[in-house]
């Protein structure tokens, strides 16, 4: 990555400054006999940074994302608590050598710092700065106030909003609010949740079990699900967002209905009774201590058929913390072992994966809707 010297500019002349920046880069590369510079852009990426985090802190993460998805980045640094209103912008470029090492692929980055009342000017400013006819991804790194005018205003101009429900203090209520938003914006804006993305390997492993027809035959008899996840040390008993999303995914796919609220047995365990066509399904959620955990988040998942003949499908984080292991226990015998490599859960990688899709993630949205349906 190469960062060119930043230039502080007035917001009204940002586009002009960008043009000059590119001309300057071309001249520099020609004069110094450097490798040719190629400008690349497949999307607009608007990043709303949490208050207090500087452009320098987030730049490496953005560079990682734009390496995979060359975009015009509009980075917004907000100081809402400031008593003085201000708005400043600067332009810069991030460059990577191309695969064959001959040309440099460069993306432009506009950094806008807003404080106090001027923050409300950001949505309209961003609308003028996005490259026309390219998708707009809004990556809100802190959890927004879903009901705020600022979030709503930004959301209007975005094709996809990227959030992370991992930070929800009250996951159940937060996901229900998010489900409400998803329902309100059925056509225009799609939503991505990095927390949902973290569940992908679990869903792949579990789905893979039931590719085998003899296992699939057990699906209508599943009557117990056990989810163990590493707790965040909260004093209040609450199910984490990933636990809820996983339960909602299984329930919405397998047409289970929730007729009651989760019942807390003690501060770390709860049972949730769901109704299937001809049976009751219990989802048992256990919050384990973060001490000694090899990886945060989900720790293990078991799907069980209790009764005769019994069956059990187990997925859990391997001891190395880098793989997900699974096996089936049928009639007392273990079989069907599978291993999946867990990709890095870094925010940049997760966000990069979300930039690959434009349309609605129907299964995610259906899972969210399931959470509010009961």
């Amino acid at each position, binding site marked *: 990555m190469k960062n060119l010297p930043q230039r502080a500019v007035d917001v009204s002349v940002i586009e002009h400054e960008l043009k000059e920046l590119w001309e300057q880069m071309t001249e520099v590369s020609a004069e110094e006999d450097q490798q040719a510079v*190629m400008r*690349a852009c*497949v999307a607009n990426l608007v990043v709303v940074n949490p208050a207090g985090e500087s452009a320098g802190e987030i730049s490496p993460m953005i560079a990682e994302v734009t*390496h*995979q*998805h*060359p975009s015009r980045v509009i980075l917004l640094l907000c100081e809402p608590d400031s008593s003085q209103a201000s708005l400043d912008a600067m332009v810069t470029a991030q460059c990577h050598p*191309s*695969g*064959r090492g001959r*040309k440099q*692929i460069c993306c432009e980055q506009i950094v806008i710092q807003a404080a106090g009342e001027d923050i409300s000017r950001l949505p309209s400013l961003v609308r003028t700065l996005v490259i026309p006819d390219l998708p707009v991804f809004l990556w809100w790194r802190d959890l927004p106030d879903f009901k705020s005018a600022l979030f709503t205003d930004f959301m209007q101009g975005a094709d996809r909003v990227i959030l992370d429900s991992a930070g929800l203090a009250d996951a159940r209520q937060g996901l229900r609010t998010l489900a409400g938003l998803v329902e309100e914006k059925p056509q225009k804006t799609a939503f991505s949740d990095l927390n949902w993305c973290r569940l*992908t*390997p679990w*869903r*792949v*492993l*579990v*789905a*893979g*079990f*039931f*590719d*085998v*027809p*003899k*296992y*699939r035959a057990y*699906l209508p008899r599943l009557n117990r699900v056990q989810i163990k996840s590493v707790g965040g040390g909260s004093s209040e008993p609450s199910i984490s967002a990933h636990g809820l999303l996983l339960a909602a995914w*299984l329930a919405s*796919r*397998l047409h289970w209905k929730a007729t009651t609220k989760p019942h807390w047995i003690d501060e770390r365990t709860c049972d949730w009774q769901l109704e299937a066509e001809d049976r009751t399904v219990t989802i048992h959620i256990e919050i384990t201590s973060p001490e000694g955990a090899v990886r945060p988040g989900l720790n293990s998942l078991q799907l069980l058929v209790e009764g005769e003949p019994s069956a059990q499908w187990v997925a859990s984080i*391997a001891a*190395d913390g*880098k*793989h997900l292991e699974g096996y089936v226990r049928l009639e007392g015998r273990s*079989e*069907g*072992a*599978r*291993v*999946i*490599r867990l990709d890095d859960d870094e925010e940049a990688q997760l966000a990069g994966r979300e930039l*690959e*899709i434009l349309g609605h*993630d*129907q*299964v*995610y949205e259906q899972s969210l809707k399931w959470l509010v349906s009961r």
Partner: protein
Amino acid sequence: MQPSEFENPLREGLRLERTPEPCTMVIFGASGDLTKRKLVPALYSLAQQSLLPGGFSIVGSARTPMSSEDFRARMTEAVHHFLDPGQVDSRVLENCAAGMFYTPTDVKDPDSFKRLSELLSDLDEQRGTSGNRLFYFSTPPTLYAPLTQLLGSVGLNRSSGWTRVIIEKPFGHDLESMQALNKQVLEVFREEQVYRIDHYLGKETVQNILVLRFANGIFEPLWNRRYVDHVQITAAESLGVENRGGYYDQAGVLRDMIQNHLLQIFTLVAMEPPVSLEADAVRDEKTKVMQAVRPIESQHMDQFAVRGQYEAGAINGQPVKGYREEKNVSPDSNTETYAAIKLLVDNWRWADVPFYLRSAKCLPKRVTEVAVQFRRAPHLLFKDSEPLQPNSLTLRIQPDEGITLRFGAKLPGQAIQVRTVNMDFRYGTSFGKKSPDAYERLLLDAMLGDSTLFARGDMVETSWRLLMPVLEAWQKPADHFPNYEAGSWGPRESDEFMHREGRRWRRL
């Protein structure tokens, strides 16, 4: 594309939309080079991306006696050897290897096929593969017919699930042998079970020809005789025959490259829009355009085809020996290492628009591309300008995959000076994601039952029929061989051939 017909409610929406049913892939020729270099690394790579179904199994088979443990060890070593270290995850590979088995077979020992059949039944039971089987013939072509017959004799051409067979090229040596092989194969398998593989069609950029043409509104209106002057399809290789001298001396570049890879690319460029992306809808159009190619008449061969053979020279500053000095090549070999042919398509879209196909060994660099050259502007207003190059659209298939549009632009200044400029799209620039290997795509397609990217029997037959006059004419001794220096752009005759047409080969 045909969807797989099985329902797992948990599969939906996984962003891995293409996952086949549990199945067993049986590789004949499992001790050979292709298995180690391409097939097993591709299967491992699919496993690592979680694109293979639960229960997926590999059965290796060859004459070589070997235990399943030995086969697993060899394949594990091959994956480590042929993939970059960063691409290999030992745990995933270990899990993948646990699903590998081996049983020796010999076409002279029919009982060995009964043992194979028993092993497959056991795997169906143990690993839940439900009788779904994919046989891959990675053997010398002489074994294709006996293998087919033996599979049929033990009933492995049918099962309670699906059964498919992938056959590597070359599919026949000429029209007659192709027809004979096809007949033998179709006595045992139905056409829809047969997947004739051409790895070129698995390349992303080759598939992108369809996307460029039929997903964009701006190109198709220009894609006809009114605007296109001619099309050049080139597959240039900088390497010689390496250790394939024995095979190559029997084949030549016309059989090795043009009959399959280049004609397949030609059909994608020249075909009419298919009614859908169903395998047969696409393959019908490809076959139709090949059937519309004007037969090459023996008496006019010089106007349609040029051949060459390389002599010693230098590539990248390194000396290269001549073709006739290569190992397992006859010192007076008549085999062509350079071939260029002109195809004329007798239909409304392409009447009088020549398609030039060329391929050769030992050229200065490795390039595969399709260049559509448009007609000049009907009236040139800018007479004071330097001569303008006609517009062209180049689809670069390898390396540096991408698309380039060449057009004229005004040179900045007071006078009107027009210069030719290129507008470039490069895959590597716009998409940070690496393209999958061609074998990954094709193996997955075969497991899914999607034969769009595989050649159908009638298409292969038409391609042989088209080239037979050239092959027959080139049986005659080539007194002028060798006629181009390794590291040059081919024989002088080829330049003259284009010159006579009032055109020239693109400088690559």
